[in-house]
């Protein structure tokens, strides 16, 4: 088996197939609100049955992108295509996409049943069919016992389910979810994440979800678009985003990371050799084009840094000594903050695989941090 990034290997990868046709295409889309540019000339392809997450901090343009797809905002420039047909000029009520709103937007004057039936009634379906389909989706989200209640008689989690049922009742081609789990507490959010994945697989729908929660995006999505100030900075699978970020912004936004500024010392076909400004040398697997003398950044995740009292065999490279500055014990793992001689704090984490440790690392110990050649990445930006 070929070595793969991360621990998960997925068989669903239409974006890797050059012959695959995208289902949704954003082509050079720009959206301006007065002087403010919310989305800046972005192109993005989303494939059929994909679970795609738009991830970024608030104000990065992710919700605007979603609302343009739903038809609530009109792009200032560019096209949005669904199955190769441009959506420009199609009003929201004629688009085959449905949205689950962040506030759920349940109609307060209608029962759960009537809320779910609302979309089907607009299509003038026969009464018996509406009844059957409402019963089906309510069963799917396990809300059949609450059909006659009003939204204000439901808990937050139940409302979320009704909003979901209402959005999927029309069997849309694309389901848009705007921060679907934002209003739920942590435990409920984790349960619901898996339910959403199962639902997406059962229904075979294309999901586009907007979230600012990186964990949520990592758990659920097939691919993630990381956004920053109206631009998509990287589109890739969760494992690739985590293990091979393209920029310091992405590396820092997702998970925890140590970043060192460095100068390229030497480039061989297999390795890039770097000299960091913190005074140690790095040899990293070469998967990026860098020229000698260029300023780059070296990023390595805390869990890929080994911490030990003894110096590693080849202490001149991919290793640095420091003093233990702080320790956070989480039970399953321990996080060490190590202060290098340059003054920089580096994070290293270790799994607590054994209950009893002979020589535990403690505050003010002199320790070595080391990593292998494939542990870190070189970032140009």
């Amino acid at each position, binding site marked *: 088996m070929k070595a793969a990034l991360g621990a998960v290997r997925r068989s669903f990868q239409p974006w890797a197939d050059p012959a695959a046709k995208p289902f949704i295409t954003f082509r050079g889309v720009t959206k301006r609100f007065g002087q403010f540019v919310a989305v800046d000339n972005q192109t993005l392809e989303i494939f059929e049955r994909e679970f795609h997450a738009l991830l970024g901090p608030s104000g990065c343009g992710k919700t605007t992108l979603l609302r343009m797809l739903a038809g609530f905002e009109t792009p200032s420039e560019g096209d949005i295509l669904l199955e190769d047909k441009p959506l420009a000029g199609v009003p929201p*009520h004629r688009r085959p996409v449905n*949205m689950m709103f962040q506030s759920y*937007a349940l109609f307060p004057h209608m029962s759960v049943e009537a809320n779910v039936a609302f979309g089907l009634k607009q299509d003038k379906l026969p009464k018996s069919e509406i009844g059957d389909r409402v019963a089906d989706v309510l069963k799917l989200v396990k809300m059949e016992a609450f059909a006659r209640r009003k939204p204000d008689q439901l808990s937050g989690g139940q409302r979320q389910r009704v909003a979901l049922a209402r959005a999927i009742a029309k069997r849309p081609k694309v389901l848009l979810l705007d921060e679907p789990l934002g209003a739920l507490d942590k435990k409920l959010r984790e349960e619901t994440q898996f339910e959403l994945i199962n639902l997406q697989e059962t229904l075979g729908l294309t999901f586009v979800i907007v979230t600012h929660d990186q964990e949520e995006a990592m758990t659920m999505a097939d691919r993630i678009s990381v956004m920053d100030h109206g631009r998509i900075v990287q589109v890739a699978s969760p494992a690739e985003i985590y293990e091979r970020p393209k920029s310091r912004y992405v590396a820092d936004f997702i998970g925890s990371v140590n970043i060192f500024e460095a100068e390229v010392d030497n480039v061989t076909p297999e390795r890039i050799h770097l000299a960091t400004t913190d005074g140690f040398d790095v040899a990293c697997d070469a998967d990026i084009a860098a020229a000698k003398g260029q300023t780059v950044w070296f990023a390595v995740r805390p869990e890929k840094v080994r911490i030990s009292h003894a110096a590693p065999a080849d202490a001149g490279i991919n290793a640095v000594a420091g003093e233990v500055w702080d320790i956070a014990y989480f039970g399953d793992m321990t996080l060490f903050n190590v202060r290098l001689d340059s003054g920089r704090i580096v994070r290293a984490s270790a799994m607590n695989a054994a209950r009893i440790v002979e020589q535990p690392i403690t505050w003010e110990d002199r320790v070595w941090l080391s990593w292998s050649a494939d542990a870190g990445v070189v970032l140009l930006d």
Partner: protein
Amino acid sequence: MMRRFTAFNLVSIVLGFAFLYLPIVLLVIYSFNASRLVTVWGGFSTKWYASLLENEAILDAAWVTLRVGLVSATIATVLGTMGAVALVRRGRFFGRTLFTGMIMAPLVMPEVITGLSLLLLFVAVDFDRGFWTVTIAHISFSMCFVAVVVQSRLVTFDRSLEEAALDLGATPLRAFVQVTLPNIFPAVAAGWMLAFTLSLDDLVIASFTTGPGATTLPMKIYSQVRLGVTPEINAVCTILVALVTLGVLTATIATKARAFSPQAEAR
């Protein structure tokens, strides 16, 4: 924290309510006066209510008032609601602040000026004065009150409800009728009640814009009082007070019932 109910509070409340309601209570009591003299009590009687039923002039005026009220309140509610929706929903369009200000202005405009300007307009376009001129005049000022009441409700109305309706395939009109309107209905109903009440008791504007055969009840009462107060007038006024009270109570109970029943069931 519970505040102590002091003697001072009690006196304030009694005096306050007395100031507000004593005249009305007196009016109601004297409407049951058997004596012809308004200020001398001559025993209990309902004869003035009976004679009222035979007073065609007053009955005609009451009928005109009621028709003007119903028609003008209904049209004012439709127009005022449309105006409020346009001002709140259309986002920022050129001159929006000006329009918002202009919708508020008639609320503080002296009635004499409103009445006079409408009269000048009707004369200028050579409109026969009568039922319709009074109705149009009432629409034009009560519409602003409806717009203000509905506007304040729309501002707090969650826009995404309407978007959800559109998203689920409802046309903009159906989204408004099926989702927005039921949710702002208490405000629309309150606006209608307000417009109806304003039309019912308007004297100044109606006097300016009326014509032959369109005398409203306030005008009739005012002209009769100038000739001397009769207990019959007291009886008419008592009926009016009763009608308005009934309307306000119904509106209050209806909105309260709407707001509280679901929670009461859930908890």
